[in-house]
């Protein structure tokens, strides 16, 4: 397992890096509006009515943005959770913790792709 993790490290690091960069940059606007402004009524909920939301989300750019917004933060999250585990005495359990976390991110990423494909 350690050998497999070592082989996959460059890919994982790239996904993690984009998770921080692109994930952070996309999540800021998303959380401001979808997470806070619309639920609190600061922005009219009609801005995200189904027709408009579907129309925005289902064009090619919309699908890419939504997929990135969902998947990339998961890789940042998984990688940092892994490091949290290591930093707190978890060096020897890393061969168990890391695959579980990256599997969660992988499943989430596949689900993200499915979610945008079926729009």
């Amino acid at each position, binding site marked *: 397992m350690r050998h497999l993790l070592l082989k996959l490290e460059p890919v994982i690091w790239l996904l993690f890096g984009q*998770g*921080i*960069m692109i*994930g*952070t*940059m*996309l*999540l*800021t*606007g*998303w*959380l*401001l*509006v*979808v*997470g*806070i*402004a*619309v*639920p*609190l009524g600061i*922005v*009219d*909920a*009609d*801005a*995200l009515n*189904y027709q*408009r*939301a*579907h129309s*925005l*989300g289902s064009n090619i750019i919309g699908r890419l*943005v*939504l997929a990135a917004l*969902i*998947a990339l*933060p*998961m890789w*940042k*999250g*998984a*990688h*940092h*959770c892994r*490091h*949290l585990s290591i*930093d707190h*005495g978890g*060096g*020897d359990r890393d061969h168990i913790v890391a695959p579980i976390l990256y599997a*969660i*991110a992988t499943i*989430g990423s596949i*689900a*993200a792709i499915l*979610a*945008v494909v*079926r*729009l």
Partner: protein
Amino acid sequence: MAGPAHPRAMEPPKPGRTRTAPPQTPGSWPSHPRMRVYTLFGLTGILYLLVGFTSLRLVWALGEGPQRFHEVLASFGHPIYVAFHALTLAAVVFVGVRFLSLFPKAQPANIGPLKPPPRPIIHAMLYVVWITLTVVFAAILAGAIF
């Protein structure tokens, strides 16, 4: 010292001539301000992982039709969801600020003949991109454009 490090941390390739005491972690951990910031940075990973799944939930619902989509969107109004999203937003800003401060010096000195701009320029450019993307994306979501 704060506590034991990994028992084989910085282990020599072969045992020395005398018995050694096991390695210890620094006494300033975990309460040192820098280590607290670093640990907080790592903890944001939990929020990033969770927000990926809450976003997935909404986008999945978008593919299920108007009734399901509006149900899920309405559920985001629950106080726990609002608190979670607000906390995650704070975490995202914290991550962004720390990451952008560390990003410029991590760039290679050159890729072939191409040299990156000076570090302060990279730093400023990243903030411009972040702010612009946030404003544009928020404006689209809020119905101000498109």
